[in-house]
């Protein structure tokens, strides 16, 4: 890293990210900050994240959560990030209200699994149940229904500009706010 002596002296802001029951669109949108990522990386470091492949989160300042909780594994990951992060941010429609995956919430999850996997005429006769497979919840739950969430960034996905503004506010200790142009739920 080409850090100056000054910035090298300050501890970097540690940011963890994860996509739970998300489509990774919010992560892609994060990368839409384009070359501003170079600026960001002067003062921040990524901890556990799909972008780093660090498997478990250590103490960090900000955790960005994409996606809601659809299965048991989501909850374990979310709890790990919540326990280690000072500030937890739910990013995108799925994390905030369940989003597209939550459209299954009016149906019985058992019926869905049976419909998908049981094939009366063919080979598949049961729903896959290997212990390594995480079990689905009866419903998809927004992140704030599972852990305490500090901030929310709506959007599907929030744009790179929205994320950039919000992250800047958080990192610089300002109250994050989005004006009309940056705040949208779709």
């Amino acid at each position: 890293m080409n850090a100056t002596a000054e910035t090298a002296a300050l501890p970097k802001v540690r940011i963890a990210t994860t996509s739970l029951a998300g489509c990774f669109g919010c992560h892609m949108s994060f990368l839409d900050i384009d070359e501003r990522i170079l600026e960001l990386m002067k003062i921040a470091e990524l901890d556990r994240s799909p972008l780093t492949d660090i498997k478990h989160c250590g103490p960090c300042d900000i955790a960005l959560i994409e996606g809601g909780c659809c299965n048991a594994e989501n909850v374990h990951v979310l709890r790990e990030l919540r326990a280690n992060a000072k500030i937890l941010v739910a990013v995108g429609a799925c994390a905030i209200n369940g989003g597209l995956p939550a459209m299954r919430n009016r149906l019985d999850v058992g019926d869905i699994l049976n419909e998908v996997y049981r094939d009366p005429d063919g080979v598949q006769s049961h729903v896959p149940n290997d212990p390594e497979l995480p079990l689905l919840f009866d419903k998809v739950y927004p992140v704030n229904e599972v852990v305490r969430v500090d901030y929310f960034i709506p959007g599907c996905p929030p744009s790179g500009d929205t994320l950039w503004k919000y992250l800047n506010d958080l990192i610089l200790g300002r109250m994050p706010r989005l004006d009309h142009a940056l705040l949208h739920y779709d």
Partner: protein
Amino acid sequence: MSATDNTILIDEVPVPFKPGQTILDAALEGGVYIPHLCAHPEFAPHGSCKLCNVIVNGRNASACTMKAAAGQEVEVDTPDLHAYRRTLVQMLFVEGNHFCPGCEKSGNCQLQALAYDSEMMTPHFVEFYPHRPVDASHPDVLIDFNRCIQCELCVRASRDVDGKSVFALAGRGMASHIIINSPSGKLGDTNFSVADKAAHVCPVGAILIKRIGYAVPIGERRYDLEPISEEATRCAVEEVK
């Protein structure tokens, strides 16, 4: 500053009113925005959404139903009222299934626009995820009950303007829902027409005209172009002129 015979004070600013006008109408005409959702200029006040809650002479009231009167001191822009409005919008969001990314009304939706206006970053409360089927039986109009906010504009329009009484609100409390006037309960079995006033009066995406979804690109939709607070007062002021 003080009020005179035909003015009220809104956040300490004098705003004129005509005798018989509600506080909401006087405010909008005077260029002062009070959030509202179930109010519509062509219909009598409804008073159900409670987004227009303001403080009048120290007491809470609905601006859409309370008549303006000389000497009233109205507070609109207070932190408490902002918080109440945001919470009321959040309640409406969690009560139904309001999934903006998949909704044809997004960008033209008054509920969404009011949520932006009140800086709703999350619906906050535990989501109800009710099970509400869609009625696609009519050839030209779709009803998505997931998005209904019970403003009864469709009920009133169908009954009082179209003379058809296609819609009604039934049930009590959280079981309240719109029902349709046909033996099957489906819109397709009524004499509802896409030309009805009731087909064009819904402030959200519950009543949609088929085959024109997403006609306007993102960025050029009504509330992309200006926030609802500016649009509402601009329209009211333009009407007066």
